[in-house]
């Protein structure tokens, strides 16, 4: 409970939480506020924002409602960000836990692979994956997750290295617990908090990666994604710059919210490190 109190004492963390709640509310209410397909033709193309009450944020180059796309885009960003983060954290925990617990050649092999993933620029690897497996919502989400796991793996490994010889682990070993039981039942719950906090960083990066991919028109073109809309708006950038500007602000706000919440959680859970 102290942690909760500490969290709400930080204005930045509260601001982040409010922003995140707004984005989540947008994602939930999208279907209810805009029951029509957000990618369907809605009106005249390139209506400026605030000039027509029917299209509050205007329309894009092909006459689709920008506001509807922003609301549905929140779904896509949160979905891809959330699922990709879950994949990255899961792989990261497995790799890090085994490497840190067993050490020796297991650690060597797993860390070599991690290093290989870190040496290759993750956006380049993302391009390779999209080139090979195509760009549907599922493949893009998995690809973003697959390029994001090395950092959580290193973090988990470090936690395991510091925990694996503690007394509670030795006690468990003497009680006759199996390695798997020790890893997932005893050590992992203690190693988890910093990894979960780090998930906010992974999610922020995942959202940015997906939007960059969508901007390059290499993500799923059949969903209303903020990155897609920015890429589309690029064709009319010189005059109707708002088509690109609006979804960019949505991405900025979402990533900012996720980072602030992560930072707030970190400070609340590790009060001694506050301000670092």
């Amino acid at each position, binding site marked *: 409970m102290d942690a909760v109190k500490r969290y709400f004492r930080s204005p*930045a963390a509260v601001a982040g939480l409010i922003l995140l709640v707004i984005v989540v509310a947008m994602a939930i209410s999208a279907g209810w506020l805009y029951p029509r397909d957000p990618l369907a033709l809605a009106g005249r193309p390139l209506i400026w924002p605030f000039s027509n009450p029917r299209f509050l944020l205007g329309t894009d180059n092909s006459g689709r409602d920008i506001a509807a796309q922003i609301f549905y885009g929140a779904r896509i960003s949160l979905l891809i960000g959330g699922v990709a983060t879950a994949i990255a954290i899961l792989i990261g925990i497995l790799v890090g836990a085994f490497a840190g617990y067993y050490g020796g050649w297991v650690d060597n092999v797993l860390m*070599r*692979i991690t*290093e*290989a993933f*870190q*040496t*290759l*620029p*993750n*956006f*380049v*690897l*993302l*391009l*390779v*994956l*999209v*080139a*090979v*497996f*195509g760009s549907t919502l599922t493949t893009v989400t998995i690809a973003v997750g697959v390029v994001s796991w090395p950092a959580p793996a290193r973090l988990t490994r470090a936690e395991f290295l510091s925990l694996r010889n503690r007394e509670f682990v030795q006690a468990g070993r003497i009680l006759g617990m199996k390695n798997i039981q020790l890893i997932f039942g005893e050590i992992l719950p203690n190693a988890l908090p910093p990894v979960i906090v780090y998930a906010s960083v992974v999610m*922020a990066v995942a959202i*940015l990666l997906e*939007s*960059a991919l969508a*901007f*390059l028109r*290499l993500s799923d073109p059949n969903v209303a994604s903020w*990155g897609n809309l*920015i890429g589309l*708006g*690029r064709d009319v*950038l*010189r005059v109707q*710059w708002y088509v*690109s*500007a609006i*979804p*960019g602000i949505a*991405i*900025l*706000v979402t*990533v*900012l919210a996720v*980072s*602030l919440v992560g930072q707030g959680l970190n400070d609340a859970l590790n009060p001694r490190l506050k*301000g*670092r």
Partner: protein
Amino acid sequence: MRILGLAGRRLAASIPTLILILIGVFLLLQFAPGDTVDAMMAQMGGGDAATAKELRKFYGLDLSIPAQLGNYLWRLVRLDLGFSSIYGKPVATVILERLPPTILLMTASLSFAFFFGLVFGVIAARGVNRWPDTLISTLGLIFYATPSFWFGLMAIVVFSVYLQWLPPGGFEDIGTVRTGIWRVFDIASHLVLPTLTLGLIFLAIYLRIMRASILEVLNLDYVRTARAKGLDETRVVTRHVLRNALLPMVTLIGLQAGTMLGGSVVVESVFSLPGLGRLAYESVVQRDLNTLLGIVFVSALLVITVNFIVDLIYARLDPRITAEG
């Protein structure tokens, strides 16, 4: 000499990593729909199955996958990256042509991010929890959350379309032929916006790390000693604090090299710079898998090289490292 030995050992250790990457990506690309011959046939406007078979045999694509992999690695040892059927040139030539703009862009962005990250980090740490700190930290958070390609587009709108101060894209003005110093100025003016765009997120990271690391160093005993012997605050910071606080910043350059290269894919596409990143994008769109594999190799090589240089700088900044190694 000792420094070189240490860094050299680290460099040698990265060779297995490089091979691992190449094997992994090579096998991955086997799953890609269509191969080089398909791409060539499409460019020729189609052809019969016999021609395709002939071509596959010519390029060694009819061999088993392990044999192809072996061939590829053996050619790589001789620095032969294969042939790009899209560009009609050897992949190595295509990549070498595209490398200078990317290296220029990365160096410029890194210098920009490092320098301003350092300055703002120091200012924020000196006024910790007062308004300069709050302002700089908030801006840092916003910069960190800004999608680089979007910032680039907005910069084009403001500086190229409305103010018309800077060119909206390209590497140099192709309308007029310039030489010497004028060409340098021309290229520099084309690189201002891309540099800012790519550097922004790194500026945010650097200033955050710099601020944290200065705050940490300021609490150490030797800083108190320096103050106690009567040094003024500026001297304490520049002579004593900065040197030690710089270490995490230098480490970060190595860690972020890959991210920066990935970021240049997007930035080069926004500003239509003929660099390596844009080549990566083009080869994905055009299914030029040979070039894509070559780019993977060269970018991994680039990241390893940056880390090698960082090791050298690091050992120079902190003598303890060589003593331990």
